């Protein structure tokens, strides 16, 4: 079935190119609305169940995807394929393809992922030659993910191949992972009253664990923007491309070191902040910020505070006994009540 499906997609993609043209203005206005209002995501749960069954057996090698933004043509077929595979709300592929030429289209705003989509393509204009640059965004699948460390009921997993997976059966819906994510990836089903979930890209865990399969977005791409492979190989490939094409790329592989490294990495012809990436997030993994604090609190609570507080208590009760035995009223003390807690 997988082959049939792939063949179908390829044909659909070829057919799509011939269909470019015309416009449907209502679509652009509603595109974000559909995905914000979406509820009932099933892809995350499916992947989590698969993870429970398979994670012990699969390879420990980290995989990733290298995205070469200089190659992207903005056809948005990756969005379509992603929605299709993950059963997110979708539209005919032709509607995605014609955004690149449509006037009143989705590229007019910079979009982000919402409850009903795991990936978006945004358009920027090059500061070098004024030509459009299309940038696909999705979960970066950090090597040391902030969402995972921030979750207070432990409802994220980092699969050994690289995907960061969300376990909807534990999540309480506090949305702290959304605060912690430096790339603003996790989205929330705000319009589900009883059982809202976080939704995010799964790195197609349910595809890539099978030999020879790649994520659905990578598979459909007609311009070979994305390369799926071992993360270490991809880093070499990225630097090779930079070396072999002088002047084409800036000398920076986004994701190689950002927040401790990510599974998805990017190449660009212009500085990354010009195409919607945060370049001020540093190289420190997000969990490190909380780790040192949690260590401090433990020290404070277990090692530091107990002797201090008990010491203060005994010293004071001794002093109080002296006072009561000599029948003096205690002298007016300064109210620095926080002294003992340091």
């Amino acid at each position, binding site marked *: 079935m997988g082959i049939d499906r792939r063949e179908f997609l390829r044909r659909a993609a070829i057919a799509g190119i011939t269909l470019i043209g015309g416009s449907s203005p209502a679509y652009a206005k509603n595109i974000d609305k559909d995905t914000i209002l979406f509820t009932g995501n099933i892809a995350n749960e499916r992947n989590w169940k698969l993870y429970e069954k398979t994670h012990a057996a699969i390879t420990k090698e980290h995989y990733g995807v290298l995205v070469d933004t200089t190659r992207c043509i903005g056809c948005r077929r990756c969005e379509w394929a992603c929605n299709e595979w993950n059963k997110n709300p979708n539209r005919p592929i032709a509607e995605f393809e014609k955004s690149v030429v449509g006037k009143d289209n989705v590229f007019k705003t910079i979009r982000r992922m919402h409850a009903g989509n795991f990936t978006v393509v945004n358009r920027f204009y090059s500061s070098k030659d004024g030509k459009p640059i299309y940038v696909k965004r999705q979960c970066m699948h950090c090597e040391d993910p902030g969402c995972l460390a921030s979750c207070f009921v432990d409802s994220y997993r980092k699969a050994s191949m690289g995907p960061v997976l969300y376990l909807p059966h534990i999540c309480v819906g506090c*949305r*702290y992972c959304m605060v912690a994510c430096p790339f603003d990836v996790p989205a*929330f089903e705000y319009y589900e009253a009883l059982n809202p979930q976080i939704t995010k890209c799964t790195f197609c865990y349910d595809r890539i664990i099978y030999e020879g399969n790649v994520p659905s977005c990578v598979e459909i791409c007609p311009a070979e923007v994305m390369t799926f492979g071992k993360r270490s190989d991809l880093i070499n490939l990225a630097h090779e491309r930079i070396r072999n094409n002088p002047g084409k790329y800036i000398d920076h592989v986004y994701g190689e070191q950002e927040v401790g490294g990510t599974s998805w990495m990017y190449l660009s012809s212009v500085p990354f902040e010009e195409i919607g990436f945060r370049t001020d997030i540093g190289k420190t993994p997000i969990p490190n910020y909380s780790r040192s604090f949690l260590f401090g609190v433990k020290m404070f609570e277990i090692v530091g505070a107990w002797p201090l507080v008990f010491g203060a208590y005994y010293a004071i009760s001794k002093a109080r006994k002296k006072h009561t035995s000599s029948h003096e009223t205690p002298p007016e003390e300064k109210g620095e009540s926080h002294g003992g807690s340091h």
Partner: protein
Amino acid sequence: MADHTNSWFREKILLGMTPRDYIISNFNFSNLIAAIFVGTGVAVMIYRLFFGLGPATNLSDNYPWGLWIGFDILVGIALAAPGLTLGTAVHLFGMKQYHHFVRPAILSSLLGYIFAVFALLFDLGRYYRMPYLIGYSWGFSSILFLIGWHFFLYINICLIEWSPALFEWLNLKKAREFFIKLTIWATIFGVIIAGGHQSALGGLYLVAPGKLHPLWYSALLPVFFLLSAIFAGISMVIVESTITHKVFKSQLKDFDEDKYNRLVIGLGKATASALFVYLILKVFDIAHSNTWGYLNTPYGYWYLVETLGFVLLPALFFAHAARKGKAKLVQFMGFVTALGVILNRLNVSIIAYNWHFPASQKYYPLWSEVALTLGVVAMLILAYRFVVNRMAIMREHPEYESSHS
């Protein structure tokens, strides 16, 4: 009809009145206002439960936390620190002269935490899974996990600290004796627990270095939150005692105004010293991270309003009032300090959060979010009044006077 029944319910709950008299006695203007707030709040709660967070709030994927976290939790918990500060001062540092302030302080902490967690239930997507935190799934690497557990423990601690008043009211002498002995241990435990989670609330934002404005973001965030919780706690004692001494005046026999004023000024001194320590650390922090440049931006001006107007200014006035013995000024500055803490928490959680966003994309609360918050605050005040009118919080229980804890 029910006139001759002298039931427990009538005595304890209805303050000795008949149900009819009790209801009539509650028909007044302030209760009407409270009823409106509570009514709207409950309506919003029901709306949120049936329609979800999307329709009930202005929250979005970029702003996962809004007023319900920023005010109900961050502000609420900071202002619920009186139990921490006063409990420590009296039970641990032996400042017995403040013991009249302890029970109201403990009660406000207890109710503050309970209602903060109650409000939090409406912000959680799957509120019914809250108990998962306690026994089903532990996220040890999360600061929120630490906070959740500390809230749970601290509410229990406050219950223990408050329980002597409850048992006096129920006339259970044995239970009261037992829990009085526990109080001191609960206080010690409480200092550690409260210190831990007050700082952890600031620690929550440590993981968002790219989202919180550099003037507010700091490796010292937990220290700032702890220190400001301390002066928030003391200033709230000043604020509460100012209000309660007016509202519940009838409960205070042989009230010595001079002595009371002296104590208030003492609280003012304590607040001032905490404010100064906080301010010095803030300056060091800006110097260390070299964020001086940001001060000359709109966010910088706002930062200066917060730190100069609501930290430095009250600190100076507290010091002045203490020297001149002006209790009224201390009381007023107590309000200013508490307002400053509210401002600080809202700045960190909402205003300076996602600071690189253009104004058009920034979050502002929907009316329903404000209504729910106000409703919860009204509930808290009603619950506080309910307890104070019945239990020995402001006054001393006639039968237990000599052994007041």
